């Protein structure tokens, strides 16, 4: 494998690139926010908006300047930290992580528009928010396993205050179990990393080094077999793999909407990403043995959790379980462990993140104007809230897998990969979930928006009225539609990197 | 006849008695007394081994320890008096303000 930018350039100088900025900006913003006086709400919010806007611009810049023809990592940042073990802040993006970075930037910016209801301890909230984004960005871009874990912990850390302080309802419980499971997953990952370090005899935990090392001296399969399950379980918990699918929805139900957007849009993706990058990338042989198990669990996600979603009466829980169910599609794609499956999974992850952020943003906007928490609390809202109804319907259609949105292209790809790799029954199982999704999403739309007006609570005026309300919604929907119409664009990024990631799988 | 092991057993018994007392008794003075007993047990062990190995180091250590023990008793008694003055009791079970 060749790295277009050497990890250390010839003169052993430190390398800094845009990837560093992507991590530094939220960190810096957090620092500055902590220095601001607690009551200057406007300044705090302005700082946050500025930081996120910069992130978005940088992420888009990365997308445009990324060279799709090269395999390997680009825009590498390398700041050495220790020598033995060799740990350095090694950040870089390839086709796989680039779109996750973009997702983080988009959702990170859009979620700012759901923070209107935060009125107290504002400083702490935005501090946590910036820390979360910093952690997410760092995790996606980290090529050094130590810092991978480090950034992940940073962000898992702030999930507790975000839910327990600014949440609602039974928030202590929700926060506790949400954080515990996040950290539990990462605990398994940590053990895996340590096992990798000690058992493989390598002196570094850096992915490029490890990959090139494994090419010459592959990791013994017994060692792989001992280490991979740790990552499988760890990342599986993070990715809402059954039976760890419920902690997410419960958290989203009580969290402040902005946090729900961030959690469902970004955090879940981390689990799947870790599975691809670390699990499949570093331990191909062992992974291959585990993929049928992954498929089975993913199918349970798709079908069983789909039924659970069908029985939900709380709108937020419905969206949360829908999210867990959709992850099944991505995980099934990963289970195929070939370029087709992984590319499909990545597109689904991208689309899923945008979709969940969109749904929770809409929920926030509607709840602000008096929406109840039940699916059947209101009725006929399309008459009074036409614009919001349109956006929500679009989001529902995207989740249904209607062509024109990225979800369709991703699901289609995964279906083909499933049929190719595991046969017709796997594909049929996945298709059942498509049916289920249609059932509960259409029912939700129908109950909330269609039919005659049902006034069980006083509802205010149209939530989406001013231009700035439209902006995040348009961005999210636009990204979904754009990648839905032209899926070849994201796919072209995934293809090269996925095949490079999987070369080890193919050759042996 | 009376070999070194006898001394050690005696010292062990003394230590155990002292420990038991330190942990169980409620009167502060008696706790200090029990600690003294533990000290004495340790001194006995030191001297025993000094004699076993014909090395004066043990006896030197015992002398040091005795001096330290004396100082410790002085400090301990002073603390006991202060405690009595502020709490009007020297019952150890009454001193639980470290509790949650």
């Amino acid at each position, binding site marked *: 494998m060749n790295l277009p930018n050497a990890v250390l350039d010839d003169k052993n100088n430190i390398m800094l690139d845009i990837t560093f900025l992507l991590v530094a900006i939220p960190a810096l913003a957090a620092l500055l926010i902590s220095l601001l006086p607690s009551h200057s709400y406007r300044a705090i919010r302005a700082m946050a908006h500025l930081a996120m806007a910069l992130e978005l611009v940088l992420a888009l810049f990365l997308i445009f300047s990324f060279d799709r023809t090269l395999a390997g990592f680009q825009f590498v940042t390398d700041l050495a930290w220790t020598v033995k073990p060799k740990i350095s802040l090694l950040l870089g993006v390839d086709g796989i992580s680039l779109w996750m970075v973009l997702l983080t930037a988009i959702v990170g910016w859009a979620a700012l528009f759901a923070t209107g209801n935060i009125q107290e301890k504002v400083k702490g909230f935005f501090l946590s928010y910036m820390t979360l984004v910093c952690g997410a960005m760092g995790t996606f871009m980290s090529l050094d396993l130590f810092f991978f874990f480090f950034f992940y912990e940073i962000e898992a850390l702030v999930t507790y205050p975000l839910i327990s302080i600014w949440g609602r309802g039974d928030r202590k*419980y*929700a926060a*506790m*179990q949400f954080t*515990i*499971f996040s950290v*539990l997953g990462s605990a398994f990952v940590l053990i895996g990393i340590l096992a990798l370090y000690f058992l493989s005899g390598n002196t570094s935990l850096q992915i490029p080094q490890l990959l090139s090392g494994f090419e010459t001296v592959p990791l013994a399969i017994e060692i792989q077999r001992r280490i991979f399950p740790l990552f499988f379980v760890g990342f599986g918990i993070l990715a809402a793999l059954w*039976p760890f699918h*419920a*902690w997410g929805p*419960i958290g989203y139900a009580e969290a402040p909407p902005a946090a729900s957007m961030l959690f469902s849009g970004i955090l879940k993706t981390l689990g799947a990403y870790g599975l691809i990058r670390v699990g499949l990338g570093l331990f191909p042989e062992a992974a291959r043995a585990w993929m049928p198990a992954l498929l089975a669990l993913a199918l349970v996600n798709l079908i*069983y*959790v789909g*039924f*659970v979603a*069908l*029985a939900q009466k709380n709108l937020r829980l419905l969206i949360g379980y829908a999210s867990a169910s959709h992850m099944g599609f991505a995980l099934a794609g990963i289970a195929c462990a*070939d370029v*087709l499956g992984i*590319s499909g999974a990545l597109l689904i992850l991208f689309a899923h993140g945008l979709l969940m952020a969109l749904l929770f943003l809409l929920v926030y906007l509607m709840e602000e104007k008096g929406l109840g928490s039940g699916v059947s609390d209101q009725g*006929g809202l*399309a008459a009074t809230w036409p614009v919001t109804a349109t956006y929500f319907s679009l989001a529902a259609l995207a989740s249904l897998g*209607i062509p*024109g949105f990225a979800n369709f292209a991703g699901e*289609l*790809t995964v*279906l*083909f990969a499933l*049929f*190719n790799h595991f046969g*017709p029954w796997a*594909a*049929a199982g996945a*298709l*059942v979930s*498509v*049916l289920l999704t*249609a*059932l509960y999403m*259409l*029912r939700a739309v*129908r109950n909330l928006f*269609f*039919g*005659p*007006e049902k006034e069980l609570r006083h509802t205010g005026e149209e939530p989406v009225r001013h231009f700035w309300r439209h902006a995040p919604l348009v961005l999210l929907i636009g990204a979904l539609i754009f990648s839905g119409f032209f*899926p*070849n664009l994201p796919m072209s990024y995934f*293809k090269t990197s996925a*095949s490079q990631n999987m070369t080890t799988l193919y050759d042996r | 006849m009376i070999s070194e092991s006898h001394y050690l057993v005696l010292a062990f018994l003394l230590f155990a008695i002292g420990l038991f007392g330190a*942990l*169980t008794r409620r009167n502060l003075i008696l706790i200090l007394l029990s600690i003294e007993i533990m000290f004495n047990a340790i001194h006995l062990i030191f001297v025993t081994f000094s004699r076993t190995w014909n090395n004066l180091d043990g006896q030197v250590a015992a002398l040091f320890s005795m001096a330290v023990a004396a100082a410790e008793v002085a400090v301990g008694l002073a603390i006991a008096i202060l405690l009595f003055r502020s709490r009007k009791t020297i019952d*150890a*079970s009454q*001193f*639980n*303000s*470290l*509790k*949650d």
Partner: protein
Amino acid sequence: MNYYFILLAPFLAFVTIALFTRRFRSLSALMAIGGLGISFALILKLFLSLLTTGALPEPVEFSWLDLPGIHFGIGLLFDRLSILMGLLVSGVGTLIFIFSTGYMEDDPGYSRFFAYLSLFAVAMLGIVFSTNLIQTFLFWELVGLASYLLIGFWFEKNQAADAAKKAFMTNRVGDFGLMLGILLIWFVSGQALGSAEGRTVEFAQLARILPEGFASGTISGSVFFIAGLLIFCGVAGKSAQFPLHVWLPDAMEGPTPVSALIHAATMVAAGVYLMARIFFLFILSGELLQVVAAMGLLTALLGASLALMESDIKRVLAYSTMSQLGLMVMAMGLAYPVAGMYHLLTHGFFKALLFLGAGCVIHATHRQNIFELGGLFKRMPVTSMAFLMGMFALAGLFPFSGFFSKEEILQAALETSRFWFVGAEATTFLTAFYMGKLVWMVFLGHEKNHGETHEAPLVMTLPVMVLSFFSLAAGYFQIPELLGQASGETRTAHFGPVAFISTAVVLVGLFASFFLYGLKKPAYEPLEKRLGPLGRLFARKFFIDDLYNFYVAKIQQPFAELCDRANELFVIKGLGHLAGRGLYQLGSLMKKSLTGNVQTYISVVVVQILIILAVAAIFLQLV
């Protein structure tokens, strides 16, 4: 000439209306009509060049999804089949668009209506000109979406919202099978060539590969049966074949132009069209064709019987559509796709005509129940004449177009076996009967006072008249020859015994219905009493709807609840509480050891030291 505009024109119309011209009603209508009109013009140009020179442009395609193993494109395939179908869709579509400007003029959602219509147009044309199975599936879904939006157009009405959901879900169930069928075909297409890389979903290539695979034996015959059956699931969903027909009558909740366009002429025809497209697969399995023909005939008879007991104009027409689609499907099953397509085209004309005529009636009288209507012939002569012509065409009376297309089907039926023939003729009889009933009840007899009912405005009657022309004339356009040249078959309609029998059957049906309904209009449905329990069976639509409702309420929902309870118990209370509350409780337990008593603390330390010593002793093997 960039033929992509066939798709792009209505798409741009959709986008423009949706984003920009919501407030400008006339502009929206103009955009929609213009968009589809451009498509029609382009297709017409292609058709004319086909007639004159016989030359057609090569298919064009743009790569939509390109990955190792799957190469899907979106493009346009020009052949006789697609051009004729395209003419139907865009031509009838444009007429219905024009009609809608009059029909929907009082509706506040006017612009939205035309946006949805344009969306539908793109989607339908995408199916018609599709070059490969995935493109078909993609636009198939979009057509389902447009149908959902249009059925539920008046979303404030509960029935409309429910009908839209029902239509979409039923379609989805069919699409389940369709997708699996496509996957299977894709998978085996590589087998024929011996390599996974050769897998394709393109019609042109599959038409070559699959028969070769069958002939050489590299693909087993049962594969074709299964694949075809799965594809037929999708067909059944879209074309309202039993048992996925339940959505069609409810779909009448949508505005009448929607019923005319989507649920009569075009969208429901997409299933039959797909079968024609992929006929090279179907013909490779004899059992499959038998199943298809049987389902078709069953649907035809079922639809016709259900139409007997209906008293809502639109629902009668809906069941009639279902029935006629059944005949088309049967024709496919009898291995005569040309007849099926022929009937599809003529049916498109006269069914759209009938619906638009019904639309005129509804627009004028604000009523849909035939027992509340009557004597409209005097008030709305143009509509009545046109409706009558449509009825004759549907019944299959010479010299209308329906006669010719039905004759082809009946001919094919007779040639296969008398069973099919009798069944088809029975359908013909019922069709004539209920359509006659419809016409006599609505247009003859005394007027049930409707106030000032008058003829519809020109913008509505003009399309109706154009369609009646085609209902009469389409039989003379030599459509089977046009189609047949593609599949290499030629057949000429001849005035043989079939023609006589069917005409006789039709006339008997018409007279019978006249006798029951025309002479003296009954106040309520006489058949219900006369047929007794059988009548009730019909009236309750054979309890199929009830079966579905039962399934949803008593099986599906409780199962979902069960899953939810299981989830609650094991996952939430188990894992979740373990993490959430469990830790809190563990913490509380731990707190008990903090007595505040120093002696306790020291005791603990002593015990720990002893334990460590013991372990060390054992470890170092001192004890």
